[in-house]
């Protein structure tokens, strides 16, 4: 971590030393060509340098500290034709750029640049364009591993959940198209019910962000954002295809969209079909790890004048097999499994899914409307409904083979009202009210009870920006009421039914600031709070959880958990050296923690180790770094590092299931354009994951697996076929087919992780 500090300084110094004749600037105003009105919010981009400025309320924009030379400027704004201007910068250059409203079918409109206030000031990472394209076909958990500080907790090859700074499940919020995803997040073997093909961009906010996003945003927030509807294009579409060699997966995602003649109505229809067979480790096939997925979504939008509204409906359906040999639990079974170096049942190439498997459906309907008041600002209202149905089918004797063993149904409704006021002086802000109502039911065996829960919240966030400074502060108040319904002894039909009630309240705040040292070099620091009420499972779970190979017991007396997150970082987006380095420290009070105990619970299937939910005072700290350096015109090298430490303050013991340090390096070579192949980029990457040594040996049935190093390669290109362009991606993961196991895989006791995987990806827009 000391090296990171050195690099941190290096950032600043390299810039100072390279600064020769680089104190020029470009000023300008963006106007409407027809009526001369200034256009606030237009995006102005220095194409080669990839710097973006957004024109202010008076239509004004500026770039500082530019070196002498020729620059290409791309100016774009919704409803106007984009323009590219070439200028020579010698001193102060003042420009007036006029954009023509786009009315004809032929003009294209590029929507570039996002609104300023959308994400908080703290460490944010994005997955888009080429990086996002190179994750097509992968699950959300896998895709996000590309971002420093992110990992995934896995239950075999088919179930993967994102981990941010060592936290996951109930501590990571996922917003899918602006809707807070509500499924049975508590289970480490319950993967998020989202289709990553929906995303045009995936944003990750690392660290506590409860003020903006509500309770549970302790570890961070993942925003899956589709592209905005295009009101200016009559018809267009896109097809994505991905094929993987490892599990013989095929994924096909199609998207068609259009709008009406008057540019007031737009629509989009999207669907994804995925089918995968059994996955393969370096030297054997994992039985019953096939899965399939069928998703679809429809978006309808209407906008006229200052009013806009959008209806979004989506359906996610998956059936996924769980590796056969993992269907164990008692300590005897677990010990036997650990003794074996190879599972006793080896699969074959097949798409067949047998028990045990999961069948999950998730439906979402969202209606979002907003109205822009000229003098005041924007008022928005969003309603959403989600239904999550999860069925788990265990390996049972034939006589019982007609039904699930566990079923959960969770219905969630959210109502959000917000108001974004127009800038007042240098202030920009938003306040809002939120409400959520949930009902949970189960069928089959007992694991968690029925419950009804109500949440309400109110928040207020202001951002002050002046010159190089941006300062953000906010508060939020939340209240949650929950009533559970269960039998006092859930496994006895004669036991009386009880309805315990819970009330949780919390007020949280956030304060952050960023300072632009020079164009493209920014430092930031944030103090943010987050909280979460205990999840239903933490209060009431009582039973065997296969994925944990243990008997898990909740505690009805748990209180809310609160966290204070300090983070600071520096990011550099211009020059030969670019990157992002951030540090964080979390104080987690009453951190709800599944503690392994020395207890054994005797069941008719033998003894099970017991895990109990307890509250501790926990500390998390760590660093994430991404650095890229342009070695030569066509050659880039980049490095990523993430490390996290987590311990129990009371006895300084380490917490379980914390990701090991991860370092990766990529060398990219830009192959010169050929006649039909453009943007050819070839890269080689190597990733090293250390062994997790910060564990309590007594609490682990098996010590964490050894360190491993994997190699990979990616090649992307744009191939021209007449008028069409085919996006091609070729990737190899675990190129040398190495056998390894990962500490964050629940199945590390039973089987190796995945072997070599060759991926072909195709994309065609029409």
């Amino acid at each position, binding site marked *: 971590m000391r090296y990171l500090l050195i690099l941190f300084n290096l950032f600043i110094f390299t810039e100072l030393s390279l600064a020769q004749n680089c104190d020029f600037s470009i000023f300008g105003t963006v106007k409407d060509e027809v009526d001369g009105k200034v256009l606030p919010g237009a995006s102005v981009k220095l194409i080669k340098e990839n710097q973006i400025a957004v024109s202010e309320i008076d239509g004004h924009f500026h770039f500082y500290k530019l070196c002498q030379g020729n620059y290409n400027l791309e100016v774009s704004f919704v409803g106007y034709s984009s323009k590219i201007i070439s200028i020579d910068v010698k001193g102060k250059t003042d420009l007036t750029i006029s954009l023509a409203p786009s009315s004809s079918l032929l003009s294209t409109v590029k929507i570039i640049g996002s609104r300023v206030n959308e994400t908080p000031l703290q460490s944010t990472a994005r997955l888009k364009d080429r990086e996002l394209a190179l994750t097509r076909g992968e699950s959300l958990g896998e895709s996000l591993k590309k971002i420093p500080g992110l990992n995934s907790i896995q239950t075999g090859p088919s179930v993967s959940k994102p981990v941010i700074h060592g936290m996951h499940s109930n501590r990571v919020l996922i917003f899918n198209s602006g809707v807070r995803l509500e499924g049975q997040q508590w289970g480490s073997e319950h993967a998020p019910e989202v289709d990553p093909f929906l995303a045009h961009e995936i944003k990750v906010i690392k660290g506590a962000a409860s003020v903006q996003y509500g309770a549970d945003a302790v570890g961070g927030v993942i925003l899956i954002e589709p592209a905005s509807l295009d009101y200016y294009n009559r018809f267009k579409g896109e097809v994505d295809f991905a094929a993987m060699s490892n599990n013989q997966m095929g994924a096909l995602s199609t998207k068609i969209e259009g709008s009406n003649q008057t540019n007031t109505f737009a629509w989009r229809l999207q669907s994804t079909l995925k089918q995968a067979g059994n996955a393969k480790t370096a030297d054997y096939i994992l039985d019953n790890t096939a899965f399939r997925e069928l998703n679809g979504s429809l978006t309808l939008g209407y906008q006229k004048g200052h009013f806009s509204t959008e209806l979004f409906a989506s359906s996610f359906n998956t059936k996924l097999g769980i590796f056969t040999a993992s269907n164990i639990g008692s300590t005897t*079974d677990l010990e036997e499994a650990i003794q074996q170096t190879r599972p006793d049942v080896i699969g074959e190439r097949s798409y067949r899914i047998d028990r045990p498997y999961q069948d999950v459906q998730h439906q979402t309907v969202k209606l979002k409307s907003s109205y822009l008041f000229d003098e005041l600002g924007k008022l928005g209202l969003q309603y959403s409904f989600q239904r999550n149905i999860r069925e788990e089918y265990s390996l049972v*004797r034939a006589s019982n083979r007609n039904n699930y063993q566990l079923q959960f149904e969770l219905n969630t409704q959210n109502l959000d009202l917000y108001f974004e006021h127009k800038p007042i002086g240098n202030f920009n802000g938003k306040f809002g009210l939120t409400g959520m109502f949930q009902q949970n039911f189960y069928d089959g065996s007992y694991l968690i009870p029925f419950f009804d829960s109500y949440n309400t919240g109110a928040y207020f966030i202001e951002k002050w920006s002046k010159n190089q400074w941006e300062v953000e502060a906010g508060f939020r108040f939340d209240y949650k009421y929950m009533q559970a319904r269960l039998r006092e002894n859930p496994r006895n039909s004669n036991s009386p039914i009880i309805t315990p009630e819970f009330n949780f309240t919390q007020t949280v705040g956030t304060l952050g600031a960023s300072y632009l040292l020079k164009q493209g070099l920014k430092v930031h620091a944030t103090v943010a709070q987050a909280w979460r009420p205990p999840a239903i499972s933490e209060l009431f779970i009582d039973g065997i959880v296969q994925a944990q190979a243990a008997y898990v017991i909740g505690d009805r007396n748990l209180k809310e958990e609160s966290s204070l997150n300090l983070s600071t970082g520096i990011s550099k987006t211009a020059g030969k050296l670019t990157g992002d380095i951030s540090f964080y420290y979390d104080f987690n009070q009453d951190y709800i923690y599944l503690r392994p105990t020395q207890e054994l619970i005797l069941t008719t299937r033998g003894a099970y180790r017991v895990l109990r939910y307890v509250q501790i005072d926990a500390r998390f700290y760590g660093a994430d770094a991404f650095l890229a350096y342009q070695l030569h015109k066509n050659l880039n090298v980049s490095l990523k590092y993430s490390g996290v430490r987590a311990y129990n303050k009371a006895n300084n013991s380490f917490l379980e299931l914390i990701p090991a340090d991860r370092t990766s390096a990529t060398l990219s070579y830009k192959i010169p354009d050929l006649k039909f192949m453009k943007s050819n980029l070839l890269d080689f990457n190597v990733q090293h994951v250390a062994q997790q040594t910060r564990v309590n040996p007594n609490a682990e049935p098996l010590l964490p697996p050894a360190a491993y190093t994997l190699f990979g390669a990616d090649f992307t290109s744009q191939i021209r076929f007449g008028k069409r362009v085919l996006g091609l991606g070729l990737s190899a993961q675990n190129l040398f087919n190495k056998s390894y196991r990962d500490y964050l895989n629940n199945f590390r006791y039973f089987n190796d992780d995945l072997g070599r995987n060759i991926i072909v990806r195709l994309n065609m827009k029409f």
Partner: protein
Amino acid sequence: MKNKFKFLAFAALLIGSISACKKDDLPEVNEDELITTVTLRFTNTANANDVVTVTARDVDGDGGNAPVIGPLNLRPNTSYNLSVSQILDETENPAEDIREEIVEEDYEHLLVYTATPSNLITLNITDRDRNNLPVGLAGTATTGAAGTGTLTVTLKHQPDGLKNGTATPGSTDFEFTFPLNVSSPR
């Protein structure tokens, strides 16, 4: 503006209609695959009237009260015929006969007997499934010299061709450790 109100009204309608659904009754207590009761019967090969039965029972399923098991009292240096006479799920009414299911699917099941210390009793499985692999519902047991220890009986479920005659593959359907006393009756 008019449209906005239309949408708001639509949203309100949607909220009203969806929140109306409610399930009132908790599901029946249902523990699939539960085995609550196992009875072993030892018949002295020299004296058919000398029959010892021993039962392990845990009627409240996982958690709750711990299982009540045995003890098993046998004579030293004696040969017995062993049969597993009962495997039940007593949470069902009437009790579900799981033994019958195991007989039907004997090629996916194996009972494993482990004595501690190992010289206290020697067990031999005599029944075979359709693949000529041991099942373990019947066998012979020969006790050694007097002593005390335990006899662990495990039923392994080994579906999908996993069964190979050894204890290793598959998952455990039940596992009971009977306290074992081998002594001459007073």
